[in-house]
Each structure stands twice: as C-alpha cells, then as structure tokens.
C-alpha cells in the first residue's frame, strides 16, 4: 500500500491458539514472565503500566445470565507478516529480517519513542516504565534467555527467540539440520507450559509441522485480518461469536462474510 514489500521467509514461525481449550488459567503468562525476566510489579492491577508480553484477554458474548459465555484469548506479539511497527521505528530497533519471520526488538538500540506502540493495533508492545528491579535475591532466579531491559525502552514478545537459537545449536551438536527443525524442537515458554495444550507452535510453511494444517482449518482466524497486517498468530474456535469478535465484523453486520484477503 505504501511501497512496503512484504518479505518472504522459508521458515515462518507461527502459533495456533485453540480458544476452545484455553481456560484462562494464566500459566502461560507466568511462564512468559519467568522466561523473559519481567520484574514483578507492586501494583499489577494497574494494567496501563504493566508489562505483559503475553496477555490473556477475556472475551464475552455480552449476553445476560444465564446465557452468558466467556472465552479467554492469549495475545502474544502477532509477529505480523506486514508489521505496522517495523517501518515506523526511527532507529531500526525493531525489524523483521531473520529467517523465521519473528519481529525482533533490540533493547540497546531502542530510544523509547513509542512510535511502534502507537502503530500496533494489538497493543502487543510495552514500554518499560521502570527499571527491572527484583525483590532482593530474586535476581538469582533470572532466566539466562532474555536480557534485562533498562527502563525507557519498548519491549515485546519474540516467541522466546533465544530458544530458537538454542534449538539450532542443539541440532548442530546432534547432527540435525538447524534450518529444518523438527516439530516441537523449538517451543516458546507459553506453548510449552500450557496445561491443556491450547497453544500449538511450529513452522507454518513446513507441512511436517502441525500448525501448517491447523492454520488453514475452517475455524481458524486471525485478529483484525482486514487491517492486512498478516499476523503469524492464528486462533481457532468452534464458537461463532468468538470468531466474530476477532475481527471487526460487528460494524458491517456480516459475520465472516467478506474476508477481503487471506
């Protein structure tokens, strides 16, 4: 639309989240915080200042009791194929240029202008309002997989990208092919921990990976598809109201009728 050429990758890491299996238990959010060294906040109820790379939204069918239904929707970074955040960054602190199509965010480069936050309709990007100070001693439980970020930079989910690097190293060490990892060799923390297995993860382009087919399923959809950002995170639900809520069908009144693209 504006002269952006969407880059193609041989490997496209993607997630398929089955909303009919997500109980909203929160284990994924906890695992994410642990893996990514997010310091606990004194008042985490102030959701406008928290850091939640992975956030579980609660969706409601807006019906009165006893017909009310709810569903939980975990929202990592969508790792958009056509990201809104990447072209706006003035200092190339975020990019989508590595095999696998994960949108990178480099904390030592970021100047904290928050333009990318303004650009992202999914609210997947978070500004680090305060320095990551852990309760005394808890820094001994820091994960080696993600650097701690100083305040004043923007951060976001990166599909636990360090695990990708580690999986490639392991493949090299054990004689596997680092450029064609088998299904499950690389899993983000949230997908790994999920007790109901609601989160599937793999290479969307590799037919040997489960997500390849799952993403094409009839109940699969992506959030705000009409904005054409082409997220690499797919959702699945058999419940029509859940699928409707994923995009802006509400206004046109034509649920699922006109998916212009995809």
């Amino acid at each position: 639309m504006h002269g952006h050429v969407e880059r193609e990758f041989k490997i496209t890491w993607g997630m398929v989240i089955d909303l009919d299996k997500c109980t909203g238990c929160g284990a994924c959010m906890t695992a994410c915080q642990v893996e990514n060294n997010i310091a606990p906040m004194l008042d985490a109820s102030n959701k406008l200042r928290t850091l939640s790379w992975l956030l579980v939204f609660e969706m409601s069918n807006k019906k009165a009791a006893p017909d009310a239904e709810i569903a939980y929707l975990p929202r990592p970074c969508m790792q958009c194929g056509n990201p809104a955040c990447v072209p706006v960054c003035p200092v190339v602190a975020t990019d989508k240029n590595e095999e696998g199509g994960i949108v990178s965010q480099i904390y030592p480069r970021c100047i904290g202008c928050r333009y990318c936050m303004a650009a992202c309709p999914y609210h997947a990007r978070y500004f680090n309002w305060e320095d990551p100070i852990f309760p005394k001693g808890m820094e001994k439980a820091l994960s080696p997989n993600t650097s701690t970020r100083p305040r004043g930079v923007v951060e976001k989910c990166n599909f636990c990208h360090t695990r990708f690097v580690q999986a490639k190293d392991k493949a090299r060490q054990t004689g596997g092919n680092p450029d064609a990892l088998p299904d499950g060799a690389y899993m983000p923390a949230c997908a790994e921990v999920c007790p109901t297995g609601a989160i599937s993860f793999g290479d969307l382009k590799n037919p040997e990976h489960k997500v390849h087919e799952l993403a094409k399923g009839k109940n699969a959809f992506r959030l705000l598809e009409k904005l054409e950002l082409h997220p690499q995170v797919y959702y699945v639900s058999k419940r029509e109201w859940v699928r409707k809520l994923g995009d802006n069908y509400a206004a046109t009144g034509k649920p699922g009728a006109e998916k212009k693209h995809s």
Partner: protein
Amino acid sequence: MGLDRRGFVKFVVGGVAGTLFTPVIWQGLDDAATWSQNWGWIPRLNKGEVKATSALSKLCPTGCAVKVKTVGGLPFAAVGNTENPMSKGGVCPVCAAGAQLMYSPARVKSPMKKVGEGKYEPIKWEDAEAMLVEKLTPLKGQDGKIAAISGDETGSANEVLSAMLAGLGSGGGFHVMPGEMFTATKGVKLMGGNGQPGFDIEGADLVLMIGADALDSWGPTVANQKAFGATRPTGADATAQFIYAGPVLNNTASVCDKFLAVPPTATTAFSLALANQLISAGAVCPASDFGDYKALAAKFTPEEFEKATGLKSEVLKDLVAKIKAAKAPLVIAGASFGQGAGALDFVAGASLNVLLGRVGQKGGMTLLSAAPKAIASAADRENAKDAASFLAQVATGKATPAVLLVYEANPAYALPQAGDMAKAMGNIGFKVSFSTYMDETAAMADLILPAPHPYERFDDAMNPYGVAKPTYLAGKPVIAKPVMDVKDPVDVMLAAAGKLGLSLGFETYADVIKAKAKALGADFDALAAGGIWNGELKGGALSLGAGALAKAAPVKLDGKTVALAPVSKLAYGTDNLATPPANLLVVRDSELLGKDLLVQMNAATAKTLGVTEGNKIKLTAGDGEVKALVHVNEGVAAGTVAMLMGFGRSAWDQFTKGKGDNVYKILTVSDEAGTGLKVWAGSTVTVAKI
C-alpha cells in the same frame, strides 16, 4: 604564562576544536549509550550450564511433577515433565513461578521467636529446637495438651506428625485443614462404601462437574486439564463433552460445552432433580436403596428445580438427553471452591454415578483404598479430624491444648469465620509454625521454624484428591543447599521426638519417604527422577445414599441475603501461598483494582440489591465483614455474589499484603443436617452499600 582574556578565549576555542579531533566526545557518547544498556542497578543474567532436574513441586495442593531448569546450578524456571504420566508436560500457574518463589520476599529466612506483639527476633536453629523440646517436655503424656494442624493432604509428614502426637500421649490432637478429600471420603461412607473417591476424566466421554472446578482449582488440576485437552484436539472434533454446573462462569465453565448457573445453595437440589429426570427417562440401578432414592428424587420436580436454581427446566431435559447419549458419563461433585460443601452435596452428585452404573468403570468414579503406612502408629488418613471443628472447640474451651504445631497450614487465614478462628488460636499458649513463608499463622506464632521450599526438600504425595487410581509421587531437592537458613520440619520433629525419648524409627523425612515407597513396592530413585507409582483402577459396592440424603435440609434465603460463592483461581495462590509475584499480572482489573477486590454479581442481582457497577459495598455474615467494589458479571448465578479467594492478606510481602479482602471472614459455619459435619459452602451474606 600569563594570559589575557582574549588569549584565554582562544585557548579554550583551540581546546574545543582539538577535542573534536580526539575520541573524547565520540567515544564518550558511545560509552554513555552503552552504559544505558547496562545500568549498574539492573541485575545481570546468570551464566553457566543449563540443566533440567526433576522435582515434585508441592506449591499447588496436588503437586506438579516438574523439571526445574537451572543455570549454573541456580533454578530459574519450572517446565513440565513430559515423561510423567500425571502432569504430561503441563505445569500449573503456581508451580510455573516456583523458582521465583524460592526467593520470595515473604520467605522466612531463619528461625524466629516472638519477642512482642508482631515482633520477631532471628535465633539459631539449636536454640529454636531446644525451645521446642523444652515446651513439649512437660506436656508429654498429658492427653490433649499438644495439638497439630496440617495443611498438607498428601504428604507422609502427616504420618510423622500424628505418630509423634500419639507417642507423646496426645493421640487425638492431629487435625487437618478442610479439603474435599475428607468430606468426600465421609460421603463414600454414607453410601456404604470405603475409600477415597477418584474420577477418571481421561476415560469419560461426558463429564458433568457439579461445583467441582476441575479444570482450574479442583483435584489434580494439570492432569484434569491434560485429560480435557486430549479430548479436543485442535482442528478436529471433540471426543468428550464437558458440562459445568456451578455458581460462577469460572475458568472451567469458560471452556465447557455448557454452563449451568446453579447457586451454591442449590447444589443438592440440582443433583436430585437431575436424578429424578434420569429415573423418569428410564434409569434404574441395582442398589438396595433405589426405591427410597427414587421416592426422594421424585420430590425434586422440574418446578422445584426452577425455583431452586433459577434456571429453566429445559436445560435439565437437554442435560438428560446428553447423558443418555453418552457412553461413559461421569459426574464430579464438589464445592466450587474446593471445601466446605459437607458430605451430602457430594453424596447427591456421586449418587448419579451409582445410578448410571459408573462406579469402578473406565471413565467413571473409582474408589482408592488406604495406602500402606510408613509409620504404623500414624493415624489413618480417612479418620483425620478437621481443624475448623477443633478451633471451634478451643474457642469454647472444650479443647485446651498448650502447644499447637502448625505444619504447612494457614489456619489463621484460611478457615471459615477467619476472625473467630484467629481469636481462638490466640487462646493457645504456644504456637509453632513450620512454614516456608511468613503467612498469617506464622505471623501470630511464638516460634517460627522455616520450612524448605519444594526445590530444597524431600517430599511426597500419596493419592492427591481426585486421581482415578492410586498414585504416588516423590521428590528430592534440586539444589545442594537451601537458599535460606531452613530445616525440614519433619527432620526437626523427628529430632525433637528423639530428645523426648520417642523413636519413630526414622531420623529424616527422606528415610520416611523411602520407606513409604518401599511399602508401596515403588522405586524411590525412579520416583525422584520424575516417575510415578500407580495402582489399579477400582470400584466398590456403593448405595445411592438415600438415607443420608433424606435428611438434607434446603437452605432458606430471605430477601436481604444472597448466596456467597467464593471463587478459587489457582494462579492467584492458595490458602498456604499468597499470589506469587510472577502471577500478579494474571489477576484481572475486573477482579482486583489497587487495594479493592471486586465482587461479581449479575445485573439482576445487582438491581435487587440496589447497587451498580463500581459501588463500594460491605458484605456481612456473622461477626465478619468485608468491603469490596461491585462488578457486574453476567456469569454469576441468580441471587449469588461471587468473590475471589486468596486476597486480603495481612502478612506475606509487599506484593500481596493489604490487597483486597479475605472471603473466609464471611464464610459462616453451620452443622450439616444428618451428618453433623461443619459446612460453609452454602454461606449467605448481607450486602449493604457504603
């Protein structure tokens, strides 16, 4: 050399110009920017080899079989153990925060003795242990002078505790915190059977949960979630239906095929109305009391059902049709918050399994017989006495213990009518808390003996409530040395017993657990490496419990009171564990806002009570009251207010202390008709706007 003003200016200008040709400014800028990447006050990552070690993480009530990831020997994350058939690679949200909890600011760092109201002083272990022995010595042989409360349902520590009390002459002094295992086991007795009930979710094709929050906080949560997940492969058809009947559209209900909003006061009525319809639809059962049962159920007509639950009777018909169509239906009965339901609610629900012929079947209800004990003199698990009744006796002076030992329990916080219970505890002269964390009970103890975190200790879990077949897990420490100055409570007690001249045959908890494993025929080393021991799936002859159910008395509500439905979410912590710092983010702002808890009710209830969204209200029951804000939530049953458990902490740490209010304060205890059990699941409260 002297310099006039002009010369000086030139010198400075020359200096500035020269500086531009040196690295000073450029490298300075670069270094300053680099410095901002690594501000000195920001913690550095740990380096070293990353390993994963099996552990039994008993931070949640069931205990998760996890792999603890360490870097350079320091634990940093808990991931699932895919080899373990129970957790199958899943981890609950509390155990997922295990490594961080090891360094929780709420941990008790060393033994402490009380030196004044709310004041503590660190002491040495040898002094602490001597103090314990000194307090116990004069009480030896006096019945009823030493009491213990255990909050651990599954550990062999209970055997040591009860055997020690028996050996010191206070055999009746061992009590456990309320949990469903005990009421359910009593329910089984009322149905003429024996053993701890189990539920084979994995094998069922229709699971009806009446109250039991099986996919979030009831039973072996992770195993249940895994079983649930397995029946609905992503992108394919579901192989089992899940239906939740309970007061709140909770996490379990959110993924169920159907949610039936049943007020907590109508659980028995719901079960019996369902029984009535099933019998009308042709269900028969060979149980001897079928006739009585049928007659009893007949009273619960669809009209009665509508009156009791506020639901339309069509939903009942629909449910009957689904159950009839299912090959392996399973009914799980339990209180929505895992306690206080009494035996009759359980019997009413469990009787449906009997009626449908599902006892002892694959995908049905099972019975687990008592496991062999490691210590012969220990009390039988199913005969355990409950702590709520005990403290009620202390309050009235019927029980007069001089020393109370509290093991992994938090009775000062987590018993109904919490205010009264804490007061009753105050009547006991010397209280010892064996606790990992500075909980409410530790904060009123005279002696705090810090217990190790699960990664620092040996522990085991026998038949966590809800498992379908006999199950035993055991674990050993992940790290070489505890990060705080702690000792295993069981080791401390065994040593104290020894000094009091009582030998229980073991020196350490590790030995007890190894003996237990041996008694079961299991290999301890394999268990500690993340394995599991399982027995056979078994049933037993059960009646429909008609005799007991006949005595059930319906709860009466008047216009001013509403039913109270406490909501338990595992991620937000347990009775023994305030919300882990890493889980604070999971708590929604529709549940907790700053320091205010939000009480949930549907719009119709709010209208009846004359309150609207955001109103500050006071909920009172008995002597207790809590304050909260109103949040309208259409997922709450009619005439019911729902309130989260686990908040309103008065001890712990800066992350949890003083946030929200404690629902236990307004849970009121009553005697269950016919069984004499203490119940509080059907508590009612008065709501007033403030």
